[in-house]
């Protein structure tokens, strides 16, 4: 199940492991992404708190964790090729995986349809 936050993160959970990144809308708004400050493995992820920072030519933007858990994997491709977040924000441009996640934590987040209508309201 893929869910979306108001801060424009996406998250999908499979077997208590969450994969997350920023949405296509966020990537387009930021413009050319020049750097992703990846979290480190074993970092704690806390729902609603800053997990990482995505930088574009003009600005740095916080990415908040949509879940609680521990970082199990980061997308090392982004170190040399952060523009993957622009070209494939919700697939190849994933940022990290967080393990030990309780699925019900994302029940309150938006579905794809709800997120689309949220974007239309902005």
């Amino acid at each position, binding site marked *: 199940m893929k869910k979306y936050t108001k801060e424009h993160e996406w998250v999908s959970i499979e077997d208590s492991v969450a994969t997350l990144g920023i949405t296509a809308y966020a990537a387009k708004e930021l*413009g*050319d992404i*020049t*750097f992703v*400050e990846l979290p480190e493995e074993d970092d704690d992820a806390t729902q609603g708190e800053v997990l990482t920072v995505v*930088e574009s*030519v*003009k600005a740095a933007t916080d990415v908040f964790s949509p879940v609680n858990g521990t970082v199990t994997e980061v997308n090392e491709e982004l170190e040399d090729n*952060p523009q993957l977040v622009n070209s494939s924000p919700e697939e190849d441009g994933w940022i990290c995986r967080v393990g030990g996640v309780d699925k019900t934590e994302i029940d309150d987040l938006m579905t794809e349809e709800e997120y689309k209508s949220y974007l239309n309201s902005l």
Partner: protein
Amino acid sequence: MSEFKRTPLYEKHLSLKAKMVPFGGWEMPVQYPEGIIAEHHHTRRVASLFDTCHMGEFRIKGPNAAEVLDKIFPRAVASQKPGIARYNFLLSDRGTVLDDLLIYRMDEDELFLVVNAGTKDTDAERIKSLLPENISFEDKSDSIGKLDLQGPKSADILEKLGISKNKLPAFYHWNRTEIKGIPVLLSRTGYTGELGFEFYVDADRVAELWDILISFDDVKPAGLGARDTLRLEIGMALYGNELDDKTTPIEAGLGPMIRIEKRKADFIAKDILTDPSHVKKVLTPIALEGRKAARHGDTVMNSVEEEIGTVTSGMFSPLMKKAIALAYIDADKKLDPGSRILIKGRRKNLPGEVVDLPFYKEGTLRIKLT
């Protein structure tokens, strides 16, 4: 009704799907769909067209006007022959920078000043207050449109428009020409570090000139975002970042360009600018090791983690593939090129070293055309 002013090219930007942002009281294109980095590379390799109609233009005219301005501006104006443009500074009585500007010597007794959009009105008040009664001052900003064509191919484009290379102005020179019937003041100046030209035309005809220039396959539009990354990569100051009313041109490292040591005339705050003890900070270029950028306002530390300065501009350099920054460092802690520094980060500090300007050294701005 928008609270921001729009240039005559506003509709062109919308049809090119530009992202519009407020800048200096104007609604301006920050980027087009290809994005800042693509626009940056296209300017360095080919040629880009920028809408700079937001900038202000003043005409100053009267007996010995150049000698009068020579006593106002820190860089010599009287020695500037007609046909030459010079970068100069409008100063407060304390010698701090109220604006940076270009001064064109048009004629024996006529000068043309090009100023930043955000400071235009306060510049006009300041300059008028300093001019004697027999020198006229006219704000021509509303009736003049301005475009910048920048990039190594820009002279080829002009050649295709019938201006042979030997008729193009030399670096920091200008002349009058015509492009498809549009009278143009053509100046070989710019803000990118590449071969390039600025075009001053009647505001009513600037859209026509835009269409002519953009019709070339080699020419793509570029916005304020690329304008900023291009200027920073060659270490040019941006008013509001490196220059402001708390900073003198000497602190910004511009003393040699002004040739302050050789200036004979008395100009505003000359006693301050020629006294080295006024220098409290030194503009310092920094190359960081990684891609993460330092940002305006970040703290600079030396190798023993003493806080010694503040970042004025910082970004990821598309050409150098790493982050670069300009910072003011306290004069008594100033560092030579090669010195290690740290930018204080929220999570971890960013390591880097002091370098020489320009960051990007391959720019074509001074290239000889004939």
